[in-house]
């Protein structure tokens, strides 16, 4: 039975029911529609994954979407090993977030709308990952962007939220423009948009060049870089990372699902999916690796000093996405996807944990107004702690295995790889530091909020804590299917790196070969970095903020802190070089010349001419019947006279 067809369309059905009937009929019962549909979708998704593991790869066109001359696109599904991994991530995290939202969004006036959008998002994301051609990928790509916009601006009465929604949408335009051009170029080059023919023939165009603006460029490099543009926007890499921190204005389940676990990883998925194209271009791979490595370090440094709990986690997301691109850039797609998969669990957990804290603290976001929560919010504390250990790369937890593989593969990649590896290890230290800064400041120490907040402090209801616990299990064990052989051999486990073997048919194996000693060296350093970061965070932030304030008294640290606090002034820079010129053009050229000078002149001019003419004409309409009769009689005589004279 082709039950895999139902996977994306069940959430779509849920969306349609809720959006059409939600306002007047379903109201606050919307979760009875949304959650079961996503749950069923998850069941079918996992069944499909089981089929893929047993060796079935599905590639089928369902429906011919567009035919125009040579241009033919179908709606179709390609379900291979890569899609299977994404199916697990998307359906499981989506289902857990849906369940969590029942508690978190309880009593919100737009309850049905929230679940409708969440369903629509799940549908779009599934279309994106299950697609077998570039156009359907592009459809899903834009549709998840739309859902992201709708959900960031979900509390649209709040100006900051609607602004953040617009910002996310507009910043993504920059990336998607390049992505669209890339898709067009793929069609022009190969004459088809289906993945498999493109990937089979891509080696034939290696070395072909294309002339743009009088310069000669390598065709594959151009295609790869244009596609990567889309990934930069969607996955919030430098220089288009600015939208993701602002996207935290949306409800916290949205941040967990869309802006941590699934949508933002679409860029990584796309790069891995198109690996036959990227593999042919050394330049594009270097660009990806550099972008990823620099973003990882850059975002982690900003995350060090933020005080808003969700923003810290958002910068952490950008940083972890940087790791994934770093892995793709050095050809270790398997490691990148593995990190995507483990990251989905622990990062969704971090966000949902933050949501649980906000739930208890009446929406408080500043970690300095929390403190000592570990006694009151036991489940939240333990699950957040597990997620933080996982992201810090403590051995045994999921994040350790994936991050370690990325660092190791980077280390093997020549001189540039060594530099990027060093940056990656430094990032690991910073990651552990900011993650445990949250733990130390918000969960340890004494309570610093208001009395009222302290009085109302409570653990969230089971509908919220159970998803936390399930994700926490994922954050611990999800890495155990990709244990590096060097450890696997030590503990006597065969096929310990099962995940990489599973993905190999799609993404291949990285070419670099290393020694056990090199691997152990990289691993030891990353463990030291993780533990060091944790220790440093507890050393500085245990007790009150005295040690942190003492550090800020030093002029150099103060200066660094100011730069980091202002996020390297990137927003200000963009405001200066993009927003202001655009607004100036809008006011002086578009508004004054085009709008008032041309469009309004036409729109107002035509009725004005008609008005002038009718002013003359209306005089003859006196309202007296006799006058009309006279006109009639006169005209009649005239007609008769003309007939007679002729």
């Amino acid at each position, binding site marked *: 039975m082709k039950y895999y067809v139902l996977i994306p369309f069940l959430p779509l059905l849920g969306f349609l029911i809720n959006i059409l009937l939600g306002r007047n009929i379903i109201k606050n019962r919307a979760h009875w529609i949304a959650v079961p549909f996503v749950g069923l979708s998850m069941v079918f998704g996992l069944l499909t994954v089981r089929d893929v593991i047993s060796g079935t790869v599905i590639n089928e066109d369902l429906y011919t979407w567009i035919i125009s001359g040579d241009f033919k696109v179908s709606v179709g599904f390609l379900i291979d090993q890569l899609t299977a991994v994404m199916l697990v991530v998307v359906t499981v995290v989506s289902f857990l977030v849906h369940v969590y939202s029942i508690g978190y969004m309880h009593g919100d006036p737009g309850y049905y709308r929230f679940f409708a959008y969440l369903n629509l998002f799940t549908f779009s994301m599934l279309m994106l990952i299950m697609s077998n051609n570039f156009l359907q990928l592009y459809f899903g790509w834009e549709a998840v962007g739309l859902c992201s916009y709708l959900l960031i601006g979900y509390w649209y009465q709040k100006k900051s939220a609607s602004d953040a929604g617009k910002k996310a949408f507009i910043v993504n335009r920059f990336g998607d423009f390049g992505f669209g051009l890339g898709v067009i170029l793929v069609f022009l080059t190969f004459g088809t948009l289906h993945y498999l023919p493109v990937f089979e023939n891509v080696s034939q165009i290696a070395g072909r060049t294309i002339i743009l603006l009088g310069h000669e460029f390598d065709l594959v490099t151009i295609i790869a870089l244009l596609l990567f543009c889309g990934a930069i926007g969607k996955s919030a890499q430098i220089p288009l990372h600015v939208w993701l921190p602002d996207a935290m204005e949306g409800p916290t389940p949205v941040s967990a699902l869309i802006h941590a676990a699934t949508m933002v990883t679409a860029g990584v998925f796309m790069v891995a999916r198109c690996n036959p194209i990227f593999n042919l271009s050394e330049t594009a791979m270097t660009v990806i690796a550099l972008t990823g490595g620099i973003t990882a370090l850059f975002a982690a440094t900003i995350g060090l000093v933020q005080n808003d709990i969700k923003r810290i986690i958002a910068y952490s997301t950008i940083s972890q996405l940087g790791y994934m691109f770093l892995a793709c850039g050095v050809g270790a797609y398997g490691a990148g996807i593995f990190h995507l998969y483990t990251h989905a669990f622990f990062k969704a957990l971090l966000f949902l944990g933050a949501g649980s804290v906000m739930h208890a603290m009446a929406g408080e976001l500043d970690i300095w107004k929390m403190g000592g929560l570990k006694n009151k919010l036991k489940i939240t504390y333990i699950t957040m702690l597990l997620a933080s250990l996982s992201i810090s790369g403590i051995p045994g937890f999921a994040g350790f295995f994936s991050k370690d593989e990325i660092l190791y593969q980077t280390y093997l990649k020549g001189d540039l790889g060594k530099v990027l590896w060093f940056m990656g290890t430094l990032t690991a230290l910073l990651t552990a530091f900011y993650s445990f800064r949250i733990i130390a400041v918000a969960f340890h120490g004494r309570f610093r909020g208001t009395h009222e907040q302290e009085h109302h402090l409570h653990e969230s209801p089971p509908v919220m804590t159970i998803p936390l616990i399930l994700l926490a299990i994922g954050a611990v064990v999800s890495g155990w299917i990709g244990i590096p052989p060097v450890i696997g051999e030590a503990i006597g486990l065969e096929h310990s790196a099962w995940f990489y073997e599973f993905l190999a048919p799609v993404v291949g194996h990285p070419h670099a070969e290393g020694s056990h000693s090199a691997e152990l060296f990289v691993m030891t350093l990353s463990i030291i970095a993780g533990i060091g970061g944790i220790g440093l965070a507890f050393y500085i932030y245990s007790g009150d903020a005295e040690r942190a304030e003492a550090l800020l008294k030093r002029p150099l640290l103060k200066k660094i802190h100011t730069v980091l606090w202002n996020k390297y002034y990137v927003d200000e820079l963009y405001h200066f070089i993009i927003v202001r010129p655009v607004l100036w053009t809008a006011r002086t050229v578009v508004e004054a010349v085009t709008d008032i000078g041309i469009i309004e002149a036409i729109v107002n001019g035509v009725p004005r001419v008609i008005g002038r003419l009718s002013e003359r*004409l*209306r*005089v*003859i*309409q*006196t*309202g*007296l*019947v*006799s006058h009309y*009769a*006279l006109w009639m*009689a006169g005209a009649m005589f005239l007609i008769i006279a003309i007939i007679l004279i002729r």
Partner: protein
Amino acid sequence: MVELQWYIWLSLGVFIIGLMGFLTRRNLIIVFMSVELMLNAVNINLVAMSHYMQDMRGQMLTLFVIAVAAAEAAIGLAILIALFRTKAAGHVDEATELKG
């Protein structure tokens, strides 16, 4: 035997009297009467021509004209009463709401 042209002269005379009455009189009842005159002028013409051409279709058409004239009179009188009720006026130049 009266010749055809006399009928046509009569018809023309009646029609012009009707037209003049229609154009110049202000009293709505007189205006209706003038319309009737014009219709009947046409009827005379139709019957005379029908007889002259030995074709019954003209006389048949006359019956239709009479029927239409009756309907027109009924509607016209209804309008007159309605006008009188709303404006207490029986003169056509007092109803000028459609003035442009």
